[in-house]
């Protein structure tokens, strides 16, 4: 039988504990609210410029200069979009971008998978030397080699005219990213070697092994490299800027940048062109989001 005093002490301790727990819960709740407020603010900062971009694209350009600004347009003015489609070469730029980024991606996927397989699983003299070269050049930017590339392309042999303003001139120098080979080699190295050995013992040739055993297992890596390469060329600016001079051969990045005038800039048109460029990309992203995130993480080495 405990003394009455002891019981009172225990009850008090209980009450203390309950109070502390309540305070902790309250504090935790407060912290949680604060955390979500902060996260929401940053999400808003990330998204608001895109939404804000919509407003001038549906207004006449001079209305941008009125104050206080009129966020919601009176009526939807579609003249900017009309101008982008008919007054500029926008459709052609979009097509060029698709051809450029698409071709670079297609070629890169083929040659990088093949080379990645060879570096990971095949033996040949000079393998480590060549691979060391690939590693060393992993992060060389276009800017560092842009002059020789320009000289090469502008005097491509076998062309009656130079490679400036041609698709091959635009595409070819961009297909040799070492990062893709590196990614592919790393991925293939993680595949169980026993699979390849088993196929080899069964009498499969190297090509058959690659085609029937390795390639099917590489699907995820190929998707990731594909998205990564496409995104990388889709945002490419310096090389298209250097190698295209005619309006018809520009890519979207170069074309839209050229809409910015020397003295007067039609911001309505620029915002319309930006909206047309970025919103389809956001839709594609929302559909394939999982892959996008993986691709950009895989590219952590480059970006």
């Amino acid at each position, binding site marked *: 039988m405990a003394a009455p005093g002891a019981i009172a002490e225990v009850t008090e301790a209980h009450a203390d504990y309950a109070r502390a727990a309540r305070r902790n819960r309250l504090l935790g709740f407060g912290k949680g609210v604060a*955390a*979500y407020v902060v*996260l*929401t603010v*940053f999400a808003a900062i*990330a998204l608001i410029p895109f939404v*804000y*971009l919509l407003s*001038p694209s549906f207004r006449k350009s001079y209305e*941008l*200069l009125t*104050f*206080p600004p009129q966020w919601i347009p009176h009526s939807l003015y579609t003249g900017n979009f009309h101008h982008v489609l008919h007054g500029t070469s926008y459709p052609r730029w979009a097509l060029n971008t698709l051809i450029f980024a698409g071709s670079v991606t297609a070629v890169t996927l083929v*040659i990088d998978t*093949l*080379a990645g397989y060879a570096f990971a699983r*095949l*033996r*040949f003299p000079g393998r480590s030397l*060549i691979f060391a070269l690939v590693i060393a*050049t*992993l*992060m*060389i930017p276009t*800017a*560092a*080699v842009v*002059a*020789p590339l320009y*000289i090469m392309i*502008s005097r491509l042999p076998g062309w009656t005219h130079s490679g400036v303003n041609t698709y091959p001139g635009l595409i070819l*120098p961009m*297909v*040799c990213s*070492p990062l893709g*080979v590196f990614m592919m080699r790393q991925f293939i190295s993680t595949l169980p070697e026993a699979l390849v050995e088993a196929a080899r013992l069964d009498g499969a040739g*190297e*090509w058959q092994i690659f085609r029937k055993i390795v390639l099917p297992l590489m699907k995820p890596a190929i998707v990731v490299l594909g998205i990564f390469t496409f*995104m990388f060329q*889709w*945002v490419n*600016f310096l090389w298209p800027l*250097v190698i295209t001079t005619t309006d018809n051969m520009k890519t979207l*990045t*170069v074309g839209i*940048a050229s809409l*910015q005038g020397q003295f007067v800039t039609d*911001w309505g048109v*620029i915002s319309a062109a*930006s909206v047309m460029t*970025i919103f389809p*990309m956001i839709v594609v*992203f929302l559909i394939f*989001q999982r892959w996008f*995130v993986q691709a*950009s*993480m895989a590219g*952590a*080495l480059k*970006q």
Partner: protein
Amino acid sequence: MSAEAAERAWDELTLSPAEYRRAGARYRQRRSVRAYLFVVPYLVPFLAFLVVPLFWSIWLSFNQGGLLDSAKFIGLKNWRVIGADTELTTSIKNTAIYAAEAIFLVFTLALFLALLLNRYRRGSNFYKLALYVPLLAPAVLVGLIWQFVTNYDFGLINVALVHLGIGRVNIFGNGTSALLAIVGAEVWRGLGFWTLYFLASLQNIPEELLDAARVDGARGFQRFRRVTVPLLRPMLLFAVVIAIIANFQVFDTVYVLTQGGPYLSTSTLVWFIWKRLFAFQQTGQGYAAAVLLLAIILVLTAVSFWLLGSRRRRRTREA
């Protein structure tokens, strides 16, 4: 079968050491040829468009002209000239300041957001997606979108300032704020990427370590300071090097936002290279600056691999 016949059959089946060696060599040769067939499709463009231009770039730095006409060898003159070229030193200084500001800001914010997302998982998918969206826009477009935030007449910042009764500021009117505007564009674009990157690294930290610290009575900040930070350090160092490499190439936003102005205050290394080369005058200095960029990137690449290697070495030592 007689013993003699059996021996003959055996002899036919087996190879003498010399024959064996020859067969081995033949096999290896065939194997190498096949392997080369896999590598050559990549090797040709790799050599043609990366390795050769790399050495060519170095060679060009001793030349003048060459973009529109044929190059003329002038020895070390370019290097002597750019040594005294204040435009280049300014550009390099600007690039370094820009990179330092951008990396500091984006890393601080991204680490903070990653810690929040790591702790509060509910709904974190939405926040991750939202933060990622700016990354979809090419840097050129980010620059143009940024104009709608920073423009003197209609930028969000100035509209807000007028509403607050402060009055407009010309962000691109002075060098410090113009460079900060470019930093802002980069931070806005890169925040989502680095947040996801740090989040991935945080989720790699073994839960047991944090639990052990908690049992030992370490409070939230102590756990962060004594457990999380030391475990993140190698990854952070690597990320810093990668970010320096990426940020040293800043060009697109400079092109659309400031064109290097006012008075060279936002001229960066790649902007300098581009301007010297493709104005088709003073190309020699452009060549030399390109080699400088090449050297910086190569050194940083080596450092990043050294860091990766030291992390791996530590891990194997611990194992």
